[in-house]
């Protein structure tokens, strides 16, 4: 009794196989067929094995009859040598059968099982084909064929070569986008292999990944064992872009290591020599600043010209939550340059909002679109810790942050005493302002340090209340604390009676002050500073530290100093926010500076972080808040449902298939009945859109590994495996020659061939 039963094969494909289900082991058709490339010819040749016996029997029957007189002598000769003659005839018959069998086996292209071939000294050839399916290979040439099309054709040729080879062959097919999961994993090449290879190759399309070749080669160490008892050839079918191969030190190290292990490497250039034009959206994100519902949000989109000619009139199409809005036009992008344009968006409601930017069609599609999700809150709280009970500094800052109707900034200032920082959670405040702080309780210092290290922004304004000794000891902490610099004492800024120079000298390059580049600079020039806190004389910024002076006073003393602590930023001003030591807060420049300061210190927290395609989603959930079932909406709006796996203290949602750029929305079920959506933004790596080629000649000089050959596409012959033919056919050919020579010698010795000479002389 038989039954069809699916059998997982080593190439990962599911094929039907015909198997006996009674548990007894029998030689199967498949097993025999695997031994021959041309199995039907073998079956047809089997009857031919009986040909010598048939001819022998026919000869016995079709003898010539002769009436013979001298029977006496003939019978005497027959009696004398009969046994030996029969033995020779049988041996001759056996040799002829073996010779015919050898011919049949050669024509049927017999393959040896690996263990047999090893006994005969044959070596298995293992072709490891690495196909570059990163999105740059969708670059289509003038012939309408993409780089990937050429790579697939080359891979098929390699497969054909392996099938035609006489020795034992294996093939592994790996895509760049998933090097740890080969499409074909060490599959033995038999006569039906080409069909499965072709169907596997046909399914390969350009991915949106940007896997580096070195990573692919490194992944082979995990996928394949060290090459033992086999000749391994690695074919790297790629476009060989300049950004990866211009200075391939790590690749050279990897290739050299492979060569030392006896692995032959062939770099197959599948791209055309000519570089095609390609525009890439390099980034799409909200500008640093406050984002809140109903507040205009400035977004930035950057487009890079990866071609060799100037692109003019580039239109960037925009969509907000699926609605098309007016495009951004970039007049000109010169080759290799990135042009950034700002556009304004206004989200009426709080929550996650999706923005998509896309370009018109060009040779590479994947980098023509980019996605961003902006998490818009109802309002943004700002904590102002003012040590002055009157809150003078805090009021001025608060007035700037929330000037009141009709101007809406979306920021809600909250003025508190410094001790508030030590007793309340600070995570909800994007920025905290410290003013008039004489002392801070240790809990507050610790909470603020942790807040900044976690990514919070801290702005510090000093005043006459500031205690330099305390500040240096507990807040500066030799550079490890909140204060970026050690303080010395209050100083008066000597008035400039000639008014030849403004009191403030700001670094236009810094984001906080960059706005003055385009605004009227005379506002800043009107700012007067008459008192400031000088720094310790012996202090100089450590070149290795992140502390830097971003604005100076006229006399060169620091006015604003920035440092980073953990993931957060701290900017300290050496003067007051209130008009006590300056007239700054009465100047429009103060408003602009504080708003820019708020934006800068808030950081990009409103934009959901973007991920590279291929990076898996792993989201840990609080099991007390969420139930296990979830729903995942993919970029193509296809939905998939699943259950989170229960971990020790969390629920874990995992999703590996993130090969397509776009937004993945994870819909969670809250235990309180409220659903929650978490979005994950996946974008392609814009660097992969750089189509600059390294070129064959340059690659020749760059690759220094000894046994690494560079082959142009199409240069691989269909008989790629021929070089390794130490096949059974060769062995059979030698055996056939030996058998034929042996047959002739035996036939001669049996007196079948010598010329008939005169017999007995008369």
């Amino acid at each position, binding site marked *: 009794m038989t039954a069809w039963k699916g059998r997982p094969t080593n190439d990962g494909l599911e094929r039907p196989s015909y198997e006996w289900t009674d548990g007894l082991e029998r030689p199967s058709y498949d097993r025999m067929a695997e031994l021959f490339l041309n199995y039907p010819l073998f079956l047809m040749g089997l009857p031919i094995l009986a040909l010598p016996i048939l001819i022998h029997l026919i*000869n*016995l029957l*079709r*003898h*010539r*009859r*002769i*009436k*013979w*007189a*001298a*029977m*006496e*002598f*003939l*019978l*005497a*000769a*027959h009696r*004398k*040598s009969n046994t030996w*003659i029969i033995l*020779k*005839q049988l041996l001759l018959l056996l040799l002829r059968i073996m010779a015919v069998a050898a011919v049949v086996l050669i024509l049927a292209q017999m393959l040896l099982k690996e263990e047999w071939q090893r006994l005969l000294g044959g070596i298995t050839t293992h072709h490891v084909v690495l196909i570059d399916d990163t999105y740059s290979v969708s670059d289509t040439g003038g012939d309408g064929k993409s780089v990937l099309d050429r790579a697939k054709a080359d891979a098929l040729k390699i497969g054909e070569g392996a099938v035609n080879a006489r020795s034992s062959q294996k093939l592994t097919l790996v895509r760049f986008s998933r090097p740890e999961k080969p499409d074909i994993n060490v599959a033995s090449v038999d006569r039906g292999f080409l069909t499965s290879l072709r169907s596997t190759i046909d399914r390969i399309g350009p991915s949106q990944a940007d896997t580096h070749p070195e990573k692919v080669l490194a992944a082979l160490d995990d996928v394949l064992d060290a090459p033992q008892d086999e000749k391994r050839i690695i074919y790297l079918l790629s476009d060989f872009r300049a950004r990866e191969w211009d200075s391939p030190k790590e690749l050279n190290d990897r290739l050299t290591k492979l060569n030392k292990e006896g692995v032959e490497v062939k770099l197959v250039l599948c791209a055309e020599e000519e570089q095609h034009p390609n525009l890439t959206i390099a980034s799409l994100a909200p500008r640093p600043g406050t984002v809140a519902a109903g507040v205009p949000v400035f977004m930035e989109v950057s487009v890079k010209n990866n071609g060799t000619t100037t692109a003019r009139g580039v239109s960037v199409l925009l969509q907000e939550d699926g609605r098309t809005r007016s495009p951004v036009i970039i007049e000109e992008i010169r080759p290799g340059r990135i042009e950034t344009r700002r556009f304004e968006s206004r989200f009426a409601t709080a929550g996650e909002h999706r923005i998509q930017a896309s370009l018109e069609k060009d040779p590479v599609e994947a980098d023509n679109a980019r996605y961003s999700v902006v998490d818009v809150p109802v309002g943004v709280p700002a904590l102002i810790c003012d040590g002055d009970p009157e809150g003078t500094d805090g009021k001025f800052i608060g007035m700037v942050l929330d000037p009141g109707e009709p101007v809406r900034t979306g920021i809600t200032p909250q003025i508190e005493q410094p001790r508030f920082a030590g007793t309340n959670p600070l995570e909800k405040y994007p920025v905290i302002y410290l003013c008039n702080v004489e002392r801070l309780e240790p809990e507050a210092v610790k909470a603020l340090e942790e807040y900044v290290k976690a990514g919070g922004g801290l702005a510090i304004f000093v005043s006459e209340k500031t205690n330099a000794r305390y500040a240096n000891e507990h807040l500066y902490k030799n550079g490890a604390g909140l204060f970026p610099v050690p303080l010395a004492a209050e100083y008066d800024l000597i008035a400039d009676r000639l008014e030849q120079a403004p009191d403030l000298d700001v670094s236009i390059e810094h984001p906080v002050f960059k706005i003055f580049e385009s605004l009227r600079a005379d506002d800043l020039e009107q700012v007067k500073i008459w008192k400031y806190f000088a720094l310790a004389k012996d202090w100089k910024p450590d070149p290795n530290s992140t502390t830097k002076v971003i604005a100076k006073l006229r006399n060169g003393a620091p006015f604003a100093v920035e440092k980073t602590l953990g993931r957060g930023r701290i900017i300290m001003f050496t003067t007051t926010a209130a008009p006590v030591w300056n007239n700054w807060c009465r100047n429009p420049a103060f408003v602009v500076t504080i708003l820019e300061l708020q934006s800068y210190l808030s950081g990009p927290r409103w934009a959901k972080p973007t991920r590279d395609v291929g990076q898996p989603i792993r989201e840990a959930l609080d099991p007390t808040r969420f139930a296990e079932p979830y729903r995942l909406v993919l970029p193509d709006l296809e939905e998939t449902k699943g259950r989170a796996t229960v971990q020790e203290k969390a629920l874990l949602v995992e999703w590996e298939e993130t090969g397509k750029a776009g937004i993945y929305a994870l819909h969670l079920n809250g235990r309180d009945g409220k659903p929650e959506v978490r979005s994950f933004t996946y974008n392609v790596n814009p660097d992969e859109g750089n189509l600059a080629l390294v070129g064959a000649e340059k690659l020749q000089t760059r690759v220094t590994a000894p046994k690494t050959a560079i082959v142009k596409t199409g240069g691989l012959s269909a008989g790629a495996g021929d070089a390794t033919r130490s096949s059974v056919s060769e062995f059979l050919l030698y055996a056939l020659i030996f058998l034929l020579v042996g047959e002739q010698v035996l036939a001669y010795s*049996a*007196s*079948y061939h*010598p010329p*008939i000479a*005169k*017999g*007995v002389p*008369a």
Partner: protein
Amino acid sequence: MPVSKRFLHPDAIKKIARMDLRARHIVEGFLSGMHRSPYFGQSVEFLQHREYVRGDDMRRIDWKVWAKQDRLFIKQYEEDTNLRCTLLVDVSNSMRYGTRAMNKFEYACTAAVSLAYLLLRQQDSVGCVSFDEKIRLAVPPRSKRNHLFSIINTLQVLEPRDKTGMIQILKGVAENQARRGMVILFSDLFCDRGELFRGLRLLRQRGHDVLILHIMDDDELDFPFSGPHRFEGLETPEHLNCNPRALRAGYLEAVGAFLEEVRRGCAGNTIDYRLVRTSEPLDAALASFVSNRLGMDKRG
């Protein structure tokens, strides 16, 4: 074809016509002829003087000797006689083999008739005996010229059959031929060699001059066959399926041993032996055979 033309080839006759077939040994005839006789008689050839004894013919006394020596001597002359030759032709089945113009039987008959012609032409008496296991036909010796046709007609009607039984034949010939004469055997000698040599020895003991013309086909001497063959015995019921090339060496070795045995046996009995291939031109073979008889001793 006229009966005489079958076995009497003009070319062969022409070749040997001027030759004589002489008896090597003394033979007894009844006519004066060219062969040495055991008797003294009338002849032109003086042999010796002998003292007269009573009863000698007075006419043979040599008076010249009596006149000189006063003793009576008679002259003795060597007597010549004619030859009584018996041709023994083997007509057993084995003589049917032959692949060329003549098989062994025809070759033997032609040779026999040619020699009969030669002998009759020189006034000798020729008889013919054909035999296989026993004597099939026998023609008594005659010296008349037209006796040749009797011999030809005898051979003409014969067809080879049966085995060769040599001892009875030779024994019969020896007993029937009271007088010493010549016996010529035409055969392939495929018979029991012991019987053959016993018979020949008997003939020699009776004073017969024995000659053997051993006739064999080229195939029997060269064994040129190739490819599968079935050999069926002409005189025996045995057969053999074989590839002849595989057996050739052994066969030739056996034939060589057979010929050597025959040669030795003939030499030991003072018998003239000549092996003839059927491909050999008959005239040349006979010329060679006859010329061997020339230059022999006058008296044995």
